[in-house]
């Protein structure tokens, strides 16, 4: 399964939930804490924490597409 991550900077309110869950995939801009995506297609070992991050994001700024390859 592949996971495709997208972030919407205009929705992000810099709550930092995503970096707390998945620092390998999300970072924050220094000046205002807005989300920075580090990995568009994180490996399978990160899928769970990325799903957690997307679920915890209070501003619906993280979108996931999970594709079953075939």
């Amino acid at each position, binding site marked *: 399964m592949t996971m495709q991550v997208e972030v919407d900077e205009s929705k992000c309110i810099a709550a*930092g939930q995503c970096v707390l869950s998945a620092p390998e995939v999300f970072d924050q801009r220094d000046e205002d804490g807005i989300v920075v995506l580090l990995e568009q297609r994180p490996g399978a070992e990160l899928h769970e924490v990325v799903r957690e991050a997307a679920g915890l994001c209070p501003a619906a700024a993280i979108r996931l597409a999970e594709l079953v390859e075939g």
Partner: protein
Amino acid sequence: MADTLADTANEAAASLPEYPMAREGRCPFDPPAAMRALPAERPISRARIWDGSTPWLITGHAEQRTLFADPRVSVDEHQPGFPHQSHAMAETLDHRPLTIFNADAPEHTRFRRMLTGPFTLKRVEALRPAIQKITDDRIDAMLAGPKPVDLVTALALPVPTVMITELLGVPYKDHEFFQRHGVTAVDRDATPEQSRESSTALVTYLAEAIVAKMADPAEDVLSDLAARVKAGEVTVPDAALMAVVLLIAGHETSANMIALGTLALLQQPEQLALLRDTEDPKVVAAAVEELLRYLTIAHTGQRRIALEDIEVGGETIRAGEGIILDLPSANRDPEAFPEPQRLDLTRSARHHHAFGFGIHQCVGQLLARVELQIVYGTLYRRIPTLRLATELEQIEFKDDRLAYGVYELPVTW
């Protein structure tokens, strides 16, 4: 006919439960008994508030997520029908400026982005050594002095106060001034004059400090705000107001979590032992989330109003109707947290609503987490025999405050 209809409506309103309800003295950590069944049975209901109006009362975790995230749900307290916290809050409406708390997007976005810089994970993690030092210093002082000690004045208040004043770049010598005015400015029972005076005193002090930082900047929030003033993004009074917001939102909340959390843990020694006997930061971090959930100190209901008709959970909230999102209830919703009335430091609780949800979710949450991880992770290890120096029945709870907690916590060891 019209009279009869009005009478029926009044009778219906009178039969609704009143909000907020009182907690029972026996279970100071639990929501009121009448509220406890609501998340499972009636996640969306209505209640009657102080002015006789009957806003929607949202107690379900899922329903709160939906509404907090809905852009048609507004914090604009000037909308007619807004369910104000109290008579005093309604009366002072016109004296309350637009801030991050009562602004909707896009104004909210502008306020928020000016405040979030210091609260990134990186900046907050960099504060760990300083927070650890304040905590250790205060515990040293406790151990060196006479006992019993009031934990609120000895540790719970000084740690967040030092943190917030350092973050802002305000000298520690002024912390009592902040303590006093910060509390009065948001006290829901303060007279309009009192809360106005306190807000003015704080804003004046901070405006002067910001002007001083324009000439002589340092690495702190007031200097960041001073730079924004210089760049023409914000006026001095508005920048000062933003600094006040951080003070008000940041110090009593964290202090209450420290003292109330300690009291809850002292009642449940097997849970306290989990924290006392670990050096694993993951265990401590999970414990903090669970205590945030279990205690949910923001206990007076987040206030909102519907700007349009909204369908949620089989009900229609009409445009212009008030909405109260009761955070303690959602955090005890059995759908979201199995056996919700149990304090279980090992559960996974990060989806709690202790910091709210949606675009107004707490700005300072990462800082609050680090403060609590350090204090809970240090206090019980350094004073393993810590115990209450009075009876639970003697303790006075902050039932009447925006942030729940205890006024004093006498402890000994």
